[in-house]
């Protein structure tokens, strides 16, 4: 959960990935893995080749698809995690042929939406309540590794500039707040004192 929150907040756009499930409890998500994607403030689009590479890598690590390709996670700006028409279309088209799948959306303001669909038998869908499971061990936060993963995979599509990897915008220090009037006043005061 910490990684998901970090990835949600580190950049200026939506972001998405696949949940990596516990082998013995497929609804227990232990990690989120990004694939290469183009994101804007209001959209996320996975790169098809990167999705295929992700499948190959996960299989090489000994995982089955039900562990790495069934829980689709992405973020929404603002307060609403409700799936859009695009989200629903993707969930139907890309996950409608699997036995089961989960769509999880977390909005910037913290609200979440989780829904499972079961495509076997008569088929059904069910809203799930997501929660952090503290009873299991989990690795320590690793902001540096998470940041590198973000930079390696996310290209921000800013309509006012050309598309660029996040790493390029990083140099622009976009996230740093401009100094407030109080900061400037404080700096001026220090200069005056010295």
């Amino acid at each position, binding site marked *: 959960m910490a990684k998901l929150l970090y990835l949600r907040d580190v950049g200026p756009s*939506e972001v*998405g990935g696949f949940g990596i499930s516990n082998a013995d409890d497929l609804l227990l998500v232990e990690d989120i893995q990004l694939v290469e994607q183009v994101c804007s403030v*209001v*959209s*996320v*689009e*996975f790169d*098809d*080749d990167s*999705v*295929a*590479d992700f*499948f*190959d890598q996960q*299989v090489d690590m000994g*995982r*089955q*698809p*039900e562990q790495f*390709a*069934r829980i*689709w996670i*992405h973020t*929404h*700006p*603002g307060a*609403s995690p409700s*799936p*859009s028409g*695009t*989200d629903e279309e*993707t969930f139907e*088209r*890309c*996950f409608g*042929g*699997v*036995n089961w799948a989960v769509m999880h*959306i977390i909005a910037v303001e913290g609200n979440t939406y989780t829904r499972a669909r079961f495509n076997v038998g008569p088929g059904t869908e069910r809203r799930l309540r997501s929660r952090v499971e503290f009873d299991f061990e989990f690795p320590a936060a690793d902001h540096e590794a998470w940041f590198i993963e973000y930079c390696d995979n996310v290209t921000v599509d800013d309509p006012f500039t050309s598309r660029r990897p996040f790493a390029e915008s990083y140099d622009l220090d976009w996230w740093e707040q401009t100094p407030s009037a109080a900061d400037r006043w404080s700096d001026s005061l220090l200069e005056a004192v010295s």
Partner: protein
Amino acid sequence: MKVLLISNDAGGYAHHVEAPDNTTVQQMFERHVGTFHADSYLIRVNRQPAAADQPLRDGDRVSFTPLKIEGAI
């Protein structure tokens, strides 16, 4: 021959499957996924894009992965 099939469809595949010699990509798809609708999947053989009529060889790795996973508000 045996090929490593990777697909998320149905229960999911990530294991070796037996196939007759000269099985094509399309035949493999239809056998394990269903009606061939290549526009919904990225189909790769040995991590490279493959044509529907490409014959498979023993030891090949075949993957069917979803296309255009996208979200928006």
